[in-house]
């Protein structure tokens, strides 16, 4: 970061603050991409597994790796800078912990996808687990890649070709990630037990209506399913009866008046 030589107050730290803000943005987007990668990885091997899904996984993974490289150079350069003031260093360390944890999650997910790709090869169409999914992961991948819509032209490459290419790249990437993690630990010494996070213990609830309600309705009362339907039918019949009564009454009134 170029030093801003200014007579005004603490503008020397503006550069450093910007670094912090940049770093935070980068780490946040890495966390987002890793979360999307995980959600996509749960579809592998299921009935919606396809070339498209694998392609989306590849793109998400590449984006995550690009981000990881950027964050690594950014954070290592700042954390090795001995002139960093104390609060900034603390913030950087929190970012560092977030970064290394995301990398660990990404590493495990990549290993799992690699392994599952072995078992559920794209060429063998029969061995797919019927796990109940219907849609693909396109929206999730779109979110990961920060594009509003993922309008992909159908990939023209053959599944087998794509797969073998993908496997070799993935192997390299996994080992690269491994080295990066080791490297990081060597270069920057962050004492994890000294890191003090800001956030609350309980994250704030983001929305109220959700699949939780669906789950709880269906699930906790297994015997009430047929009862529920019967009750609905009864209510419907009652309404129809009321409508009929009103209709006959109105006809009577019209008739007799």
């Amino acid at each position, binding site marked *: 970061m170029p030093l801003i030589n200014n007579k005004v107050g603490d503008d020397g730290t503006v550069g450093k603050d910007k670094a912090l803000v940049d770093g935070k943005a980068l780490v946040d987007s890495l966390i987002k991409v890793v979360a999307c990668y995980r959600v996509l990885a749960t579809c592998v091997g299921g009935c919606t597994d396809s070339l498209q899904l694998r392609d989306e996984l590849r793109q998400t993974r590449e984006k995550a790796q690009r981000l990881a490289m950027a964050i690594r150079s950014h954070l290592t350069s700042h954390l090795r800078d001995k002139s960093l003031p104390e609060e900034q260093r603390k913030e950087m360390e929190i970012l560092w912990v977030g970064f290394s944890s995301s990398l660990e999650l990404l590493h495990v997910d990549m290993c799992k996808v690699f392994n599952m790709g072995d078992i559920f090869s794209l060429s063998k169409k029969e061995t797919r*687990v019927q796990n109940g999914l219907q849609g693909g992961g396109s929206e999730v991948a779109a979110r990961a890649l920060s594009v509003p819509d993922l309008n992909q032209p159908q990939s023209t490459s053959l599944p087998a070709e794509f797969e073998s290419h993908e496997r070799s790249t993935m192997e390299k990437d996994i080992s690269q990630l491994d080295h990066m993690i080791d490297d990081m630990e060597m270069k920057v010494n962050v004492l994890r037990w000294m890191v003090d996070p800001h956030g609350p213990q309980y994250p704030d609830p983001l929305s109220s209506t959700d699949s939780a309600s669906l789950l709880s309705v269906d699930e906790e009362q297994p015997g009430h399913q047929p009862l529920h339907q019967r009750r609905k039918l009864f209510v419907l019949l009652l309404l129809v009866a009321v409508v009929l009564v009103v209709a006959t009454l109105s006809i009577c009134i019209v008739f007799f008046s």
Partner: protein
Amino acid sequence: MTIRNTLQDHGQRYRPRMACLKKSEKVLLEMQDPKTGLKSQPQRLVITTIPHAITGEDIIAWLADRLQVDTQEARSFGSMLVALGYIYPLQDHKRLVIKPDASLYRFQTPYFWPTQQWPVEDTDYAIYLAKRNIRKKGILEMHEQEHYNRLHKWMNHKWDFIVMQAKEQYRAAKERKKPDRVVFDCQERAYWVVHRPPPGTVSAMDYGLDRQIDPNSDEAVTPDFYERIMIFTQQSIMRPRVKSSVSIGALVKYCATYNNHDPFLSNCLPSNPWITDDVTFWTLNMPCVEIPTKMRVERWTFSFAELLSDTRGRDDFRLFLKKEFSGENLAFWEACEDLKWGKAASIKEKAEHIYKTFLARGAPRWINIDGKTMEVTVKGLKHPHRYVLDPAQTHIYMLMKKDSYGRYQKSPVFKDTVKKAICPDEHRFSGAQLEQNSKKRRPSLSPIILRQMEQEQRAKMAANIDITQLCRFTTPVPHLAVYSGFTDYSHCHRLTLPHLPGPHPGLSVPHQRGPGQHLGV
């Protein structure tokens, strides 16, 4: 020392006993076959329908057909698949069993299949719990709440990351359509029911400790390696052999005798605490309980070792010996045990005390062992070590076993104990009571407290030693006013000087130490 099979151990990883995972996966993939696999039906929820639900009875029927087994076995295999996490129930998600009716199940997605390669991380669990909290505050159950608080304490440095990751995963999942969201939630929840089971249940993936080394990897061949093989084979050659008819007969006899007393092989009264979470069985069988149970008393009649190893039995035996005035045998035996198992620093002191109390001529509680053993022991006591009293102890043990034990079993003391022994009724707990019991589980007394209680008891016993149990060769201890049962006081007077010889070494003294008996000296 590892002598391994020369045949490679196929299928076992170095975390043993989980070969079932690979095999289950094969069966599961076969179930997916569109032609010969399971037929699925859509699950109707309030707003939407989700495909690929299968009924319990279909699963069991398919397994019985494919594996050529009967329904009961197919059912247990199906339950195993559910317990491992390959199939999850849609209703009653906490009970991981297969019900042979129309209840619905679904296949778990391969990402959440159980595996040993990647251990289940606490970070992921924390993220999952945070996600559930995001969805609806306060939805976490008691045990989940406790886990959450504990993880917050131990992974505090990562907490920002965990909360952020939970939010991002939540948002990413929200991008999907409603039925897919529901399915994903069910899958994740089922995964965590398997790997972080609710209290009162056990995870099927709990395979015990990880082994430190991989038994399938090749061991480095060094001279040390060969030396160990040589020692092992030499020891196997030198081992004493027993005819298999004899050893098998002994095993059969042991099994037949102890079959009813094994709490896992037969019903344990009132109920097995490991199964019903009710600790009455343990409280009734505590070491210093007043009234023992019938089963316990029956075990005392199996062998002398059983009687002595049970604290309550030993107390009873001690009472009997007190009435027979031969309590010093047991006291000596106990003192020898104490020496053998006690601290090295106290060996010298204990050995001296034992010599003074039991072995010296004119000792207050003189024991009766034959001359040769006495000679060997006294010589050894000049340089005492842990096992110096072994010959004497064995002699006394055999003495008690051959003589006192038989008389004990016919004695009124024992008959009284047998009569008073209780036989508790069997518990019959309903399902709700079992759950309540599992919630009320509490840790037992701390071992520190138990050790203190033991020491207090020992001190009390040591203080209460009945030194009235004198033998006729004891020097009269002047300050003790009570002498029990000696008719011939002149006899004792003659033996006032301590260095007078005791009984002749070669004579075998009768064991009965009743009041009126005379020695042929």
